[in-house]
């Protein structure tokens, strides 16, 4: 995938080629289902009314009895409330062009004339206005807003080119998107560190380059105020170790009220992959498998989310092994513990398997952050791996992977504490079919010690 334009094009193509064909009788089917349910509901309401009448009669006959509840109407499966109207806000895209090149009328005129690379969003040139134009680290950027044809929607497009480029050398740098004009926008290049934030004139802008994960596993952020003349920030962050870092946040404060905290739209102008982090194996490494390729992506994702370099972390593979995969092909699961500078540990469990066409399909069984103090060899965790088969019937093979080094047996437990199944651990590890309602695992040692392990979900560093 080269850029957002490509992603939009490919999503559109995939949807068009994959969607089932419309059926001519769908409206009739829906109305018929509605009427059938309505009749059932009326029947249930009638029964409820009859029961309520009996209750009223009983309480009337029994002085001091509880007051009867009024008979309720049959429940209606009401979806979420109607979409609320968007509150009015300041149009952050309004006004004259901003940025270092805002005074170059010829350049701005050239930017307005640039073609928008988009098949679906028609923005007449007459409605376009340059919101930002300027040089950034490693290039020249411009942001153009316009009104999508036939609507009141505001659409945005970024353009970029080499440093000092004339307008005609700028190219679309992302897919034009329909935006809420009251929300600030930002774009970052994780390769060069360039960052532009466009807020409303007078807004205060703060940046946080990455989360701070404390030894107890909690996350916080340090925010640095930055100059934002006319509501625009042009700055350079230290280039990230991962090409698609998601660690950076910007925060916009207006009249003392936070109006947005968000990740800049990120991309990387460099194709450099992060330097591979060395992986220390805590237990014997199994024979190589195609799915081992998922490990590099998982480590890169941790680096991207934390904003750290490979030199700042240590990566331990706690265990790797195979779980049942689709079509009798095993999927390789690797339990990784990435120790952060504070000592807290980012746990992540990628899976991967080779498909019939020779490619590798990868995904995540879960992730989370754990407090410092546990040596990799003693780490205990549980993940549920749902491995999809990639076919139209959407079959998923679900396995529970339990790592509890000091335990001998374990039980899968649901949210109410009911044990679903029990199984032994071999060398502190078990791979079993995942009971559908598993919420945690209770593990026990032969000497009576026990542990309750929650399933890893998705790490959230804020």
């Amino acid at each position, binding site marked *: *995938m080269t850029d*957002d334009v490509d*992603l*939009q094009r*490919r*999503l*559109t193509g*995939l*949807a068009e*080629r*994959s*969607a*089932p064909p419309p059926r001519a009788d*769908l*409206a*009739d089917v*829906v*109305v018929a289902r509605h009427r059938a349910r309505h009749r059932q509901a009326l029947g249930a309401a009638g029964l409820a009314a009859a029961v309520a009448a009996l209750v009223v009669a009983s309480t009337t006959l029994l002085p001091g009895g509880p007051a009867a509840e009024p008979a309720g109407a049959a429940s209606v499966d*009401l*979806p*979420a409330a*109607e*979409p609320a109207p*968007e509150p009015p806000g300041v149009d952050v895209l309004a006004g004259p062009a901003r940025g270092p090149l805002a005074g170059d009328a010829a350049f701005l005129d050239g930017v307005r004339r640039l073609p928008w690379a988009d098949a679906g969003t028609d923005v007449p040139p007459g409605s376009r206005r340059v919101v930002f134009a300027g040089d950034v680290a490693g290039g020249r950027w411009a942001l153009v807003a316009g009104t999508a044809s036939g609507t009141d929607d505001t659409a945005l497009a970024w353009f970029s080119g080499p440093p000092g480029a004339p307008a005609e050398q700028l190219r679309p740098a992302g897919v034009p*998107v329909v935006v*809420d004009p009251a*929300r600030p926008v930002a774009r970052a290049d994780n390769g060069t560190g360039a960052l532009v934030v466009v807020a409303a004139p007078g807004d205060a802008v703060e940046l946080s380059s990455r989360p701070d994960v404390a030894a107890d596993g909690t996350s916080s952020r340090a925010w640095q105020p930055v100059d934002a003349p006319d509501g625009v920030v042009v700055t350079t962050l230290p280039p990230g170790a991962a*090409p*698609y*870092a*998601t660690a950076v946040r910007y925060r916009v404060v207006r009249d003392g009220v936070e109006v947005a905290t*968000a990740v*800049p739209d990120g991309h990387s102008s460099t194709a450099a992959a992060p330097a591979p982090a060395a992986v220390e194996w805590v237990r014997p490494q199994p*024979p*190589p498998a*195609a799915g081992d*390729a998922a490990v590099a*992506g998982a480590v*890169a*994702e941790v680096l*991207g989310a934390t904003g750290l370099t490979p030199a700042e972390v240590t990566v331990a593979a706690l265990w790797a092994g195979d779980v049942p995969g689709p079509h009798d092909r095993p999927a390789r699961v690797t339990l990784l513990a990435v120790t952060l500078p504070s000592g807290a540990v980012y746990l992540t469990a990628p899976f991967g398997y*080779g498909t019939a066409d020779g*490619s*590798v399909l*990868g*995904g*995540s069984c879960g992730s989370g952050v754990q407090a410092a103090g546990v040596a990799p060899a003693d780490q205990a965790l549980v993940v*549920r791996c*749902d491995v*999809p088969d*990639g*076919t*139209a*019937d*959407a079959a*998923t093979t679900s396995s529970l992977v339990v790592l509890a080094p000091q335990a001998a047996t374990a039980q899968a437990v649901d*949210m109410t504490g009911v044990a679903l199944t029990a199984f032994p651990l071999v060398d502190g590890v078990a791979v079993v079919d995942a009971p559908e*309602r598993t919420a945690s695992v209770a593990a026990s040692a032969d000497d009576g010690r026990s542990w309750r392990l929650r*399933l890893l979900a*998705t790490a959230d560093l804020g």
Partner: protein
Amino acid sequence: MDGAGFEDFVSREQAALLRLAVLLTGDRGHAEDLVQTALLKSYRHWGRITRAGDPTAYVRRVLVTTHTSWRRRLSSTEQVVGTLPDAADPAAPREDDDDLRSALRALPPRMRTAVVLRYYADLTERQTAEAMGGSASAVNTQTARGLARLRQLLAPPVLVAEEHP
């Protein structure tokens, strides 16, 4: 209830709803069920919905929240679930589609939903947040992480084919 209006809406919007649903569910059968369920829920309040304006956004929101609730019932955690279907026309497979299908199904459901709504359905962050029942900040984060993961998955050589005995 304006039956003719509902029929016209279904006739006009059915294909677009099915395209969105198939990206969200990853399955043609589930996509059909999801669209039908969303239309059924909307039809119950059709008069009120249409009085408030164009019902498209409402029905799309019902579709997304219905899909999300299915996902929540299927899995208590944000795991990889669901797959995307093979091409509708098996005689015309697209290598692009295969790659994107594989990458999308590797995203957790809410991350995939955020990316699809922002980059396929062209919704704003706030509209996406409303459709998903969350905050704009959460949508922003999910979208950014989803895009980062898609780029990793789709940009070779992060995941490359290897032959092992």
